[in-house]
């Protein structure tokens, strides 16, 4: 240690980690016996702790001032308005249908109801599922069919309404089933088929892991599918309460193609890329595969 250093400088150098190993030990030894040095040390330690605490409070204050936007459709007010709108819509519909001089406006009213009900059912609107024609369960038709028969309209009205609904459905449905898309899925089929058998993945020599998954991921709150997934247009949809707990997607590149796994709540789940309809997530029970995935996961961090 430089003998010319004052206690103040000595402590300052120590707290700033500027001392050599020998000087540091020397300092710590003196600290035990030299009361003046200890007094100086405690004083400067208070300064440093004060600086740290001030910065901590500053950062917390910064965080507190960040506006957190709750999406409109998740607000209680919006849901109340939506429910009120549905009730009003049904009431108006019933009024027109049950009145003597009901006419062409019926179909319009039904379509409006349907749109509101859809928004209410799915917390996140505008998801591909709602516009995918390949799914048999079309919420659009189900809701309309549920509502209309209860109102017991005249037979002529039913014909008019059904026609209107079908026309509307055609407008909404995009041409999603394109030959190109199907080909991509078929390719994925072939690649994923090899590793469908969990044991085959144990040979990791030719597998490159990638935790920074290249697939686009979306989480959707879905009341019907509480722990499901699907792939659609190279995008992975996780259906359920996935915003409440962290999850990880593990992407493996092998000679036979890419395959994906979900890590959630300390369990692993296989994700098949050809799964275009919502399917329940099934936990992988094969211990050796789970261990391999765990190793891959930890290696990638």
């Amino acid at each position: 240690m430089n003998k010319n250093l004052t206690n103040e400088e000595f402590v300052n150098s120590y707290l700033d980690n500027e001392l050599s190993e020998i000087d540091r030990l020397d300092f710590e030894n003196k600290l035990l016996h030299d009361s003046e040095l200890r007094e100086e040390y405690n004083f400067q330690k208070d300064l440093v702790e004060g600086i740290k605490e001030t910065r901590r409070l500053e950062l917390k204050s910064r965080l507190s001032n960040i506006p957190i936007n709750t999406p409109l459709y998740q607000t209680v007010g919006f849901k109340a308005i939506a429910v009120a709108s549905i009730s009003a819509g049904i009431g108006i519909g019933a009024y027109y249908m049950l009145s003597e001089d009901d006419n062409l406006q019926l179909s319009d009213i039904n379509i409006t109801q349907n749109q509101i009900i859809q928004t209410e059912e799915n917390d996140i609107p505008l998801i591909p599922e709602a516009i995918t024609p390949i799914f048999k369960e079309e919420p659009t038709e189900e809701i309309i069919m549920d509502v209309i028969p209860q109102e017991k309209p005249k037979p002529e009205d039913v014909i008019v309404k059904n026609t209107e609904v079908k026309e509307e459905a055609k407008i909404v449905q995009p041409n999603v089933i394109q030959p190109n898309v199907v080909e991509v899925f078929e390719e994925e089929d072939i690649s994923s088929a090899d590793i469908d058998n969990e044991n085959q993945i144990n040979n990791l020599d030719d597998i490159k892991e990638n935790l920074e998954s290249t697939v686009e991921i979306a989480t959707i709150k879905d009341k019907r599918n509480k722990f499901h997934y699907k792939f659609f247009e190279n995008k992975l949809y996780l259906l359920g309460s996935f915003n409440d707990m962290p999850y990880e997607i593990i992407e493996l590149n092998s000679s036979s193609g890419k395959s994906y796994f979900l890590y959630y709540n300390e369990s692993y789940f296989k994700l098949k890329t050809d799964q275009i309809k919502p399917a329940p997530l099934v936990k992988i029970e094969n211990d050796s595969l789970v261990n391999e995935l765990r190793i891959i996961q930890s290696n990638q961090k």
Partner: protein
Amino acid sequence: MKDSEVLNKISIGDESALDFLYKKYYRMMTNLVIKNNGTEQEAKDVYQDPLVVFWQKAASGNLVLTSKISTFLYSICLNLWRKELERKSRLVHDQKDGAQYSNHESEEKAKIVHDCINGMGETCRKILSYHYFDGLSMTDIAEKLGYANTDTAKTKKYKCKQKLYQLVKSKYSKSDFLD
């Protein structure tokens, strides 16, 4: 923004990465508390504290991350909230005792120092915070504060520390800081 990008930004003291993380995981972390008998304010505290510690560790390069950031934060929030619930349940049975007294003096000292720091100029506050809390290198500090070189930052830091030192000493007698 990927985790690696976030960590890179934090390592150079880019606070926008902190804002990003806060917004991204706000619902996830606060729901953890709110759904387990916590209030919104408690949820904020339980989320903000580990996030600030995460920032400090990541900025100073003292963080070895073995999981995703979200997993890391979630596990800390979970533990913190469990501890807080345990503390609350203990408080129901135990009355506060004299232990509060022993902390009184150190709290007062901390307030004195806090007031002195806030009485300094912004540049000094920043340079001292970046050095002692964020653990940024003098090169990073020089870059962040627009100094010509590292030596300028070092000199500035030394002067600021001296200023704080004198400020605190002049306001309070030495006995305030004796054990």
